[in-house]
């Protein structure tokens, strides 16, 4: 699947649409950024509640191309601007991390 295919999953809303539409081969679910750094591997998509600048920095370092922000957490202007500058797709959802992981996992 590709980053754009995440938009076909019910419950995910694209909130940052200026992104590179790269292939997604896997995902990682975590709210601890050091854990993401240590274990995400070639994730493709990060499923998390951490919607701030540092999350984008981590995604950049790990070549993660899409983020799903769970539990309806707010995605503020600053966060989205950075995501845009780094060409990362951001999806927002009311679902929790487990539910999103299952949905994306089933679509891979």
């Amino acid at each position, binding site marked *: 699947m590709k980053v754009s295919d995440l938009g076909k999953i019910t419950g995910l809303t694209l909130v940052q649409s200026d992104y590179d539409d790269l292939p997604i081969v896997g995902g990682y679910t975590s709210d601890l950024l050091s854990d*993401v750094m*240590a274990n995400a591997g070639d994730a493709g998509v990060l499923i998390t509640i951490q919607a701030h600048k540092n999350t984008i*920095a981590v995604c950049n370092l790990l*070549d993660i191309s899409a983020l799903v922000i769970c539990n309806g957490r707010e995605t503020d202007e600053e966060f989205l601007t950075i995501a845009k500058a780094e060409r990362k797709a951001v999806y927002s959802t009311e679902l929790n991390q487990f539910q999103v992981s299952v949905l994306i996992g089933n679509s891979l």
Partner: protein
Amino acid sequence: MPINKSIQLLQENSPSILLDVIYRSKIKDIMATKLATSSPDVTLKEVKSIMKKAEVTGIPIIEHDELVGMISIDDIFRAIDGEYMGEVVRDHMSTDVIVLEDDMPLAFGITYFEKFKYGRFPVIDKNKKLVGIITSRDILHELLFQLNHEVARLESEIRVEVDPTLITLREVYKINKMDFSNAGKASNEIKKLLKDRTFDPKFVRRVSVAAYELEINITIHSDGGELEFFLDKEKAVVIARDSSPGIADVTKALKQGFSTADNTIKSLGFGAGMGLPNVKRVSDEFNIISEVGKGTTVQSIIRIENT
């Protein structure tokens, strides 16, 4: 003079350098081998003059090449008080002599001085032959010598010897305290520099992890510092320096899950106690020097060939 118990050198969390030293050094490397000894059949008065001449406060008593007792300066004082200096040593020496073996590590010596209140221990070899004597002063001397040596070695390690003509890239980034809006910026720049040079993605990943975690550490824990990055033909080196506050217990800080970060920082997804362990894991060489009040320097070396 026994070593004060409160020194407590043999703690589980003692710095590994210290443990290295006290297990690496052997009793035979430290003991005095030039021995003043006496037979048990001479008088205490004669022993006193042997001790005086040899400038020691205790001597082993030998009979038929075998250690049979010890006479210490305390025995001599008692004899003067009790006015029996003319009597023979055999009747007044301590015979329950505790000995160390020459092949034992220094750690055993330290334990003995803590456990038994003697000022010196005779040292025997595996054939039970007396080969030396060791005092707490000898141990202190050796510890100071070894620790000096180790500190000098660590200091030289942290200042990596690099041939300046081989460096292909060098950048220093200033990192501000609690500046989360810029945290990750330096490591992302380092990553871009490496990516532009088409290195193996795995190598880029390892350097990125080290740089990022060190950058975040300076942001969260220090009063500000710098992140230095350089590259030569063989390796990437990331050095994080700050001037305060320093880490009270480095061993603990290197343990996965140990964190001193507060809840605000944790709510941002930091402070999981994985930072330094992550750096160590991706490094081929990892060094850390920290002193409370003086700050922390961490150095991570990642070799290009190993990726």
